[in-house]
């Protein structure tokens, strides 16, 4: 600490340099304030201070990130499955490693301030961040400091971040949304219905998706990618389905339908009951057809069974 409390510099072969000065107060405020320097900088102590050679400053960061796995092996292995690690191993040295998101000496507990998570991703994904910031979720997070809304890591996960353009990722979208939208404790206070998940899952698209997910191996050949939540509601740009944005959602719906139902006319989206359960007000025709059968089927079954029982009884009596 003696030396690193003052101005020291590390020089790299590339000519870059990195300050070796440690901000003691931020280190003491970090979650690692009980660790000693050599816990991470192993091989170094006040007696031993071997000279290490790094071509670039980035090489040093990448190498230092390897230190985290000594304690955080579970997270480390998760990152090895991520798209970031794949990019890194393909030679993209700018792909983020532990230090890039968590920092080095001033590591804080990440879940405390959720907006910070989005801001970390912003460093590389600025375009998507801007779109997200305008969405119903991002707006609530940044303008109302709402801690219920999802941030990047809630859908993309923090460490095992998967390529979101894959089929398997798309097929898990309803799970991600239902984490909150099927949970009354979370969405109930905003007047949102938890029926949105059930109504989707029990309808054509949801049932098809369920089977696509069950179909493994040779059967895993969906005719078309099935419509999931994000197809109608948007991905990072999700807007509210009530209030001024509602009309935009509806106008976009038919375009989305036409991606699979090429011939779909303007009123085609009406064939989807917009997550409402059929009632007298919403979809009365569907409601009545359902009601008629709900009454008729039990009467039919009871009538037939009763006749059969009477017939058997008469047969037995006649013998």
């Amino acid at each position, binding site marked *: 600490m003696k030396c690193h409390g003052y101005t020291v510099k590390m020089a790299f072969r590339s000519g870059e340099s990195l300050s070796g000065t440690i901000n003691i107060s931020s280190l003491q405020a970090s979650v690692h304030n009980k660790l000693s320097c050599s816990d991470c900088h192993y091989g170094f102590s006040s007696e031993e201070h071997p000279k290490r050679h790094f071509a670039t400053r980035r090489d040093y960061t990448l190498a230092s990130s390897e230190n985290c796995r000594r304690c955080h092996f579970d997270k480390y292995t998760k990152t090895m499955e991520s798209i970031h690690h794949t990019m890194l191993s393909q030679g993209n040295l700018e792909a983020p490693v532990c230090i890039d998101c968590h920092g080095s000496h001033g590591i804080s507990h990440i879940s405390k301030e959720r907006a910070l998570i989005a801001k970390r991703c912003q460093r590389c994904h600025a375009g998507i961040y801007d779109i997200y910031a305008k969405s119903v979720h991002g707006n609530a997070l940044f303008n109302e400091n709402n801690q219920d809304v999802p941030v990047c890591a809630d859908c993309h996960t923090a460490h095992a971040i998967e390529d979101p353009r894959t089929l398997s990722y798309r097929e898990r979208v309803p799970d991600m949304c239902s984490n909150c939208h099927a949970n009354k404790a979370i969405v109930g206070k905003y007047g949102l219905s938890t029926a949105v998940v059930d109504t989707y899952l029990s309808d054509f698209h949801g049932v098809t998706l369920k089977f696509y997910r069950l*179909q493994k191996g040779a059967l895993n050949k969906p005719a078309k990618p099935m419509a999931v939540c994000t197809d109608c509601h948007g991905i990072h740009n999700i807007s509210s389905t009530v209030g001024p944005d509602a009309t935009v959602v509806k106008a976009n719906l038919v375009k989305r339908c036409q991606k699979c139902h090429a011939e779909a006319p303007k009123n085609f989206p*009406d*064939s989807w009951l917009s997550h409402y359960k059929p009632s007298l007000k919403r979809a009365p025709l569907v409601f009545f*057809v359902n009601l008629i059968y709900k009454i008729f*089927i039990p009467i039919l079954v009871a009538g037939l069974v009763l006749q059969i029982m009477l*017939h058997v009884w008469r047969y037995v009596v006649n013998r």
Partner: protein
Amino acid sequence: MWSTGKGKGNEMDVDTVIQEERVKRFSPARSVEHLAHVATFVVLVCTGLSQRFYSLDISQWIILHLGGIDNVRLIHRFAGVICSLQIITHLAVAAIGIVYGKWQPSMVITKKDFTDVVHNIRYYLGMEKSPTRGGRYTYKQKFEYWGILTGVLLMMLTGFILWFPSVVTKYLPGEIIPAAKVLHTNEALVVFLIIAIWHVYNAIFSPEVFPMDTSIFTGYISKARMFREHPDELAEMEEKPLKDIPASP
């Protein structure tokens, strides 16, 4: 037993003779038609009810073993087209048969069928001495026939709507699609229940025919059953006055 004179030796002999004597009931064409309907029915039930009750293990087993949900829908639609063709052929043949006078419109429900329902239920309860007298088809068979026929016609219509939603919504409001789905699945359940409960009972488990009514397969029915179930038709066939063939339980 149809015999009214229990315990009398000479009548027992008549009983045995009639038991063995057979009457022609269906032409081979009707047997083939029935078998074809059985085949499409089984395929449609397996691929259809497994979609309706999609969360059951058995449904998932069926769908995964038939090559996935897209395949199951393809099979269901294909079988639906076959079934529709069968129904259209059936109706066309029946219409031509009746128009050219070769067939009697014996499936048409008459006022007697409604009174027969009441009469037979009264008979079961011991309020009438004898059961109803069946003609070519009894009221049980007629109501079953029309129940299934209207069900299949409704499913043909709604099945087409569900197959081509974008075409249908060009001319009709969008709500038609979910309404057609509700109607299609429920009507399917109705037809399935009529077959599973009523038809299977009357053709297999009814003590009158157990272990099985084979007439639709062989084309022949025993004279004893004609006496019991279709006395009016038998009388017509044998050109006897009705009173000679008594209604019997």
